């Protein structure tokens, strides 16, 4: 005689309990529409190779996964479609190991062939992806090892290559479906894109909105709680805030000017930490014709920094929603740096000390100040830079520097620092550095003789400091040993910090107005202003209350 009865009864009870208490994920769990109002939708194209700038991380990210993902807690990079990656012993290639069982929205499996196809497509001459040309230079060939392993051979050692495959940095790592595009053609793909992200594309109305629908199965980035997602283009900030107040939108991008209105209206403010750093920098100061100019003197450049009351800018220009900066282009999540050391450096070196500033000016031979040309500009997405620039100029005026401030629209300003920088050399200007985890790439752009700004020297006129920097940078980006790379990164930071050539003013945040009745409490990804990788983790209003 067997005693199955009590066993099956127990099993039945257990299963019943599980079904009652642990609801299985189903389409029915997802409800409502999450409406987001944005200031820009960039090129509003659903082909990843046609969007060059940051809005891709708002509106393409819901549909497309990237090869490398985020560290959601700290910021910076983390696992993506590739769950891990490793550098070959000779440093000449990276191998990426993909998650198994991933599917495109049309049901096809996502494989290493798609990764190869996507990167090669991003590298074509047709691509507008902002780092497409860098990718063309850096990648030698791509080989599929098996369905879940892909090896990327680089030209020389590229220790930071995986970072460039993450939306934490750029968009080049976004993956596209090989079979689907080859079957339907590029034109059809652009009309009806298929991705592998947690949201499926539904419709795009140019200049107005993009609509998405949540996938109804568990997704490695998180199964969306909302059934639908609509991203609206609402260029005027007052209108965006009004829409959040009326509930027409759940979330809207805002600037610091709107923070008070948002708080008065009892909405919530979500501040994304460390999305940018506002800086000022000296153009062409290395040139021989400026050898006797005040800005060629390091003491003067340091004095100008000491004259700035950063806390006052944080409190009054940024309404308290900004942080004390670390060295140029570094943040709490930056890789390869000693964060504690550099935070301490920032507190001390970037202090407000007008007495010492005046003393340094006297020592440099300018006790009564001097004339300083200052180009003020604001980069797209950070309009408050202009007000910061005006505040900085006022602080400099206070120590006797006669600032001649000139305001530039961003597109017009960009023309000035191209080519020989003739019109900008000898000037100081506002600038910005975006929140990115790898400082070395930004330092190349700022200080390398072949970089866009080349503040230490150019290809044709590279003084000693410029040569030292070029050599250090070259050795840093090829350094495979983590400890040695950290040392070299510290050295690079020291070199730039000690030059006072590009000086941080404040560390800015990304600002959002949120209607708590329309969406539950959520956390952004440090450093990534855009929410394209956060939408799926946003709870319904009743699911998680706001503190």
């Amino acid at each position: 005689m067997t005693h199955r009865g009590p066993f099956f009864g127990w099993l039945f009870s257990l299963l019943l309990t599980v079904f009652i208490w642990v609801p299985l994920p189903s389409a029915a769990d997802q409800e409502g529409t999450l409406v987001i109002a944005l200031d820009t939708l960039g090129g509003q194209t659903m082909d990843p190779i046609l969007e060059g700038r940051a809005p891709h991380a708002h509106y393409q990210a819901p549909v497309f996964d990237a090869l490398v993902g985020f560290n959601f807690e700290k910021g910076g990079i983390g696992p993506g479609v590739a769950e891990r990656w490793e550098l070959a012993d000779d440093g000449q290639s990276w191998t990426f190991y993909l998650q198994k069982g991933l599917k495109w929205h049309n049901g096809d499996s996502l494989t290493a062939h798609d990764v190869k196809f996507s990167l090669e497509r991003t590298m074509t001459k047709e691509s507008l992806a902002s780092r497409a040309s860098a990718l063309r230079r850096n990648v030698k060939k791509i080989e599929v090892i098996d369905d879940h392993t892909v090896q990327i051979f680089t030209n020389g050692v590229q220790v930071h290559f995986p970072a460039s495959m993450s939306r934490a940095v750029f968009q080049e790592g976004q993956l596209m479906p090989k079979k689907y595009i080859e079957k339907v053609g590029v034109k059809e793909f652009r009309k009806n894109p298929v991705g592998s992200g947690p949201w499926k594309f539904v419709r795009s109305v140019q200049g107005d909105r993009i609509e998405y629908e949540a996938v109804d199965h568990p997704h490695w980035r998180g199964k969306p709680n909302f059934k639908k997602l609509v991203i609206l283009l609402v260029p005027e900030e007052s209108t965006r805030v009004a829409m959040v107040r009326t509930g027409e939108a759940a979330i809207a991008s805002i600037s610091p000017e709107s923070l008070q209105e948002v708080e008065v209206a009892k909405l919530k403010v979500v501040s994304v930490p460390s999305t940018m750093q506002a800086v000022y920098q000296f153009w062409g100061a290395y040139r021989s014709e400026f050898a006797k100019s005040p800005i060629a003197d390091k003491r003067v450049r340091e004095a100008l920094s000491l004259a700035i009351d950063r806390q006052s800018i944080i409190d009054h220009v940024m309404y308290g929603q900004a942080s004390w900066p670390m060295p140029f282009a570094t943040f709490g999540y930056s890789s390869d740096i000693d964060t504690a050391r550099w935070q301490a450096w920032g507190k001390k070196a970037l202090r407000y000390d007008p007495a010492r500033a005046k003393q340094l000016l006297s020592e440099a031979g300018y006790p009564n100040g001097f004339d300083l040309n200052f180009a003020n500009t604001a980069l797209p997405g950070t309009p408050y830079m202009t007000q910061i620039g005006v505040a900085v100029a006022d602080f400099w005026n206070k120590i006797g520097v006669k600032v001649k401030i000139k305001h530039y629209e961003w597109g017009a300003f960009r023309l000035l620092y191209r080519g020989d920088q003739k019109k900008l050399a000898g000037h100081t200007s506002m600038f910005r550095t975006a929140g990115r985890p790898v400082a070395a790439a930004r330092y190349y752009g700022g200080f390398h003789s072949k970089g866009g700004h080349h503040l230490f020297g150019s290809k044709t006129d590279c003084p000693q400091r410029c040569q030292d920097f070029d050599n250090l940078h070259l050795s840093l980006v090829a350094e495979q040993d983590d400890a040695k790379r950290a040392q070299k990164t510290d050295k690079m930071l020291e070199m730039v910090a000690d030059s006072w050539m590009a000086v941080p003013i404040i560390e800015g945040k990304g600002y959002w107005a949120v209607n708590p009745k329309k969406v539950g409490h959520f956390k952004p990804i440090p450093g990534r202003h855009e929410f394209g990788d956060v939408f799926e983790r946003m709870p319904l209003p009743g699911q998680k209350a706001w503190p």
Partner: protein
Amino acid sequence: MRRYIVQRLLQGVFLVLIVTTIVFFLGRLTGNPADMVLPEDASEEDRQEMIETLGLDGPVHTQFFIFMGNALQGDLGLSIRYRQPAAEVFFSRLPNTMKIVPATMIVALVLAIPLGILSALRRGSVTDRFSGAIAVLGIATPNFWLGILLIYLFSVQLGWLPSARMGGFTHYILPTITLGTFLVAGFMRLIRSSMLEILDSEFVKLARIKGLSEFKVIWKHCLRNALIPVLSLWGVFMGGLVTGAIVTETVFAWPGVGRLTYEAVIFRDFPLLQAVIIMDAILILFINLLVDILYAYVDPRIRYT
């Protein structure tokens, strides 16, 4: 009349060519779209490659001849930002603008004509002064501010109307008021002064002596003549509304031609900017031609040869 129309059309072609040339060269002085695509610290090497990708690497005069050659065949180039034919992008936005412009014009005229007549008939009265004050306010109020004010009052505080975007009937109310306020003021002042002049004229006195009813004198004889200058202003406003409703379209997130023009300028999307301005120029030429034809209808003394 037919000869006149053909002549005006030929002049129009010439004007469009001049406008195209000016826009082509002036646009390029203000920046390069490659800079708007690339990160702010991109190297010169990356920039050159992007310029090639965008097809902007040849000498400007060569680019101009290529553009003109294609334009004469109806191809205005590919929008740099949207990677779609620029003309296609323009025509996808034009219907949105054309939904709001006639509505605004109708509201403006329906309000301005009676108010203008009333002010003229009761010159110096409280009604006249009140209308005058409204006109000054309408002209002086920046529609950017007015739009935000209306949103705050009717959407945020009262909750009666949607804040922005295209949609059903209620979505038209606030943008129409915002755009129309300036128009009402302009039309009203013009109708008033025009009516005052006509009310003083000999033929009106004659009409009254002949015993015509005051209603007939005002609405049939005076108004028809008073509308002639209004027609000119209508043409100017109409062109301005189609191409220049940038502020209202921005405040109300209305995806029309005005906002498209602004975006093309900011992004240095030359092909799109050229296409928009060429299309706008053609549209304005047609509106002006229409005004001239309407002149002949309203005022039989005007004959084109």
